[in-house]
């Protein structure tokens, strides 16, 4: 099987990150009226989060395999927001902004992926 080109893998990770962030925003929004709930956000996307810089080589089948980096981004609590009287720190407006950011990141990642796909198609001689 062909090794996936790096740019496509990158786009894949970026889209995955955007989808994860969308999930976190959905959580905040669903819990916008839950007493004591603290709003969460995701650490910004960083390329190669799932890779380990210098992976261990497995020289024997019974040995430990190469370390797998975790692919889930870090979840942070949103700080600096005054809680409402019931202890909730979700602001619908900022959540909407985050949702829009996640959406545009997702769209960007998919466009990159699509462009890479088109390039491969062109290389195969099928045109666009």
């Amino acid at each position, binding site marked *: 099987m062909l090794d996936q080109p790096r740019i496509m893998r990158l786009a894949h990770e970026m*889209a*995955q990150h*955007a*989808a*994860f962030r*969308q*999930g*976190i*925003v*959905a*959580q905040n*929004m*669903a*819990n*916008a*009226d*839950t*007493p004591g*709930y603290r709003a969460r956000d995701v650490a910004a996307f960083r390329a190669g989060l799932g890779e380990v810089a210098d992976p261990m080589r497995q020289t024997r089948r019974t040995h430990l395999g190469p370390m797998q980096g975790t692919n889930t981004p870090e979840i942070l609590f949103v700080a600096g927001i005054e809680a409402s009287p019931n202890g909730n720190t979700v602001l*619908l407006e900022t*959540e*909407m902004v985050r*949702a829009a950011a996640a*959406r545009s990141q*997702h*769209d960007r990642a*998919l466009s990159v*992926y*699509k462009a890479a*796909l088109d390039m491969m198609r062109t290389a195969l001689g099928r045109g666009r």
Partner: protein
Amino acid sequence: MSGLLQAMGISASGMQAQTERLRHVSENIANVDTPGYRRKIVSFEEIVSGGERTGKVRTGPVELGRGELSRIYDPAHPLANAAGYHDGSNVDLVVEIADAREAQRSYEANLKLFEQARQMSRSVLELLRR
């Protein structure tokens, strides 16, 4: 893709919880003239399954409003006491309408996110076309 599906599930749980809240608000409004009726209040809580938070939300146990019941003067009423008063409900229509508004606003926000997650997953599928 599974992340987006999860996001849709969470938004749906939010909408469900808000619907439940709106149901109790309409119950309160319908009973505004019921003697001795206490307004019902629902609060929300995060769903935790197996010690892990799922991010979904649900309505907690229903509580009764502790506000004082209104006193209505109507000597002809069968429930009226010697002084001619009987208990009304402790429902405040203004509060209920405000609550309904808030529920609607939250519902719409959840719906919007649901729609967005759906569009995102559709644009992923769009890649497979052509």
